[in-house]
């Protein structure tokens, strides 16, 4: 790769259960103002931001072309604006492509989701399914994941005890993250006794309902110095979409994640993912996904997710220092949250949870039911 793309700044509000008192426009504007004040970036059509990539979802915002409700507050008028309706981490891949192609030097990426506003987030994700074969059955992202959870637990030997460890650790890590949703500390016993939502997924195995907004300024390497003294570089990105029908997929084979990871690893020159990264952020909307994605990304051998948890692999690989999606990020932004944490770590700005000397990180995002789509991002100092 002849050019590199730099992350020059990030901004986010705190993940909260119910930001009823602020419009999503206001949430985005807080992020926008932070990025402008951190970097001094302008909207000059020669030297400033000429293109904005936004991330939002029509159904969660209950309006179509959801981006047209927010372009004014993110500086997107009178210039290019493009929306991604997948996890915001794909917006980083898109920004990378725009910059590496030479089409733009600078991209502002910004996204939001308020899960608190619809009567039910599961009613929203039910609408992700077709109207004939799946939607009438009540399929949504939670019960679709339950099929995957059962199949993976059976195949891997992961038990309730392993899942409880994942949840307890997520909350402990999140307590050190000032932007993380503030959740009650829980014990393994409490996790194992929490109400069953959709067998085998229990209430505490599922990410809690969350509102959030976040942004990022990306720029070509040559001009990064104009905006920051502490850039982080995007060195790899890959994504892959699996089949739509759950029955068409092998729900445990991590097909799409393996493809996404191999493309990102090839681009970044990663030979052996087991020891390539100083820290890793995996998009675990449900507890079973953390070891499953760790296998799919090649951090551990296939089938070793159980032993990885037992042998302290989550700690050794510095996985989800942010607390992970499991502690609470809204759908659409789980992967973007993973990328922001990786940037914090590589910039040495992760406070009490800093991984000393972190130079290379992996961030991962998913879109759709039971990880239908995966994106893998490699970031380097």
């Amino acid at each position, binding site marked *: 790769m002849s050019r590199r793309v730099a992350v020059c700044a990030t*901004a*986010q*509000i*705190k993940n909260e259960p119910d930001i*009823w*008192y602020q419009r999503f426009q206001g949430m985005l504007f*807080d*992020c926008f103002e*932070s990025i402008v004040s951190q970097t001094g970036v302008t909207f000059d059509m020669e030297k400033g931001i000429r293109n904005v990539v936004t991330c939002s979802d029509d*159904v969660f915002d*209950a*309006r179509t072309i959801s981006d047209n409700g927010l372009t004014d507050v993110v500086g997107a008028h009178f210039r290019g604006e493009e929306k991604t309706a997948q996890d915001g981490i794909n917006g980083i891949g898109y920004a990378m492509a725009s910059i590496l192609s030479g089409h733009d030097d600078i991209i502002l990426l910004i996204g939001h989701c308020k899960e608190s506003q619809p*009567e*039910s987030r*599961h*009613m929203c994700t*039910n609408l992700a399914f077709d*109207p*004939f*074969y*799946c*939607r*009438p*059955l*009540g*399929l*949504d992202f*939670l*019960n679709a994941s*339950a*099929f995957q959870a*059962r*199949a993976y637990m059976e195949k891997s030997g992961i038990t309730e005890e392993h899942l409880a460890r994942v949840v307890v650790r997520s909350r402990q890590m999140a307590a050190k993250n*000032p932007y993380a949703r503030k959740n009650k500390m829980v014990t393994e016993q409490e996790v194992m006794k929490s*109400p*069953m*939502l*959709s*067998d*085998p*997924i229990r209430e505490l195995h599922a990410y809690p309902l969350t509102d959030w907004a976040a942004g990022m300024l990306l720029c070509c390497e040559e001009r990064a110095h104009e905006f920051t003294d502490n850039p982080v570089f995007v060195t790899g990105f890959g994504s892959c979409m699996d*089949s739509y*029908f*759950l*029955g*068409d997929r092998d*729900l445990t084979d991590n097909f799409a994640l393996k493809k996404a990871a191999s493309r990102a690893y090839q681009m970044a020159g990663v030979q052996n993912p087991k020891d390539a990264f100083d820290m890793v952020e995996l998009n675990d909307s449900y507890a079973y996904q953390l070891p499953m994605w760790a296998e799919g990304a090649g951090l551990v051998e296939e089938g070793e997710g159980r032993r990885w948890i037992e042998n302290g692999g989550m700690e050794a690989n510095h996985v989800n220092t942010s607390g992970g999606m499991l502690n609470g990020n809204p759908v659409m932004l789980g992967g973007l949250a993973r990328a922001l944490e990786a940037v914090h770590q590589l910039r040495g700005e992760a406070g009490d949870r800093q991984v000393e000397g972190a130079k290379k990180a992996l961030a991962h995002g998913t879109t759709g039911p039971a990880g239908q789509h995966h994106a893998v991002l490699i970031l380097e100092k």
Partner: protein
Amino acid sequence: MQKAVDSADAYVIEGKLALPYSYFAGRVGSTFITALRDSKQILGVRCDKCNKVFVPPRQTCERCMADLRENWVQLENTGEVVNFTVVRYSDKHLPRKTPYILAMIKLDGADTPLVHILDEVKIEDIKPGMRVEAVFSEKTTSTILDIDHFKPIA
């Protein structure tokens, strides 16, 4: 960037997004739905090249791009449970009072399991490999719910 919560002059407007909509089922979908409704037949499509029978049907094999639209296969109304979940939370998009069971059912003659409702069974009695059969609805909705549910074969 953390601000104190300011809820002065903060008013919430209750709204609703509702849109009656006519979905075209597609030619393949139309054949599937009408066979289910009129003949109580569950149809799949075979990809000869991949040697695989898919249900729900589709026009094109996503693996080899073969045109499958004339390759109809009549499946049995029986099959086996390969996976299941008990939906225990209540929500308006759910077709049944909870708890109800969603299962992945591999129909006899098909290679890809179909998601559907499993009923007339105690939760503790469900086992992978359990043989089940379709129970058809009395009233049509022109959707997959023309099969009301699957039940264990006695």
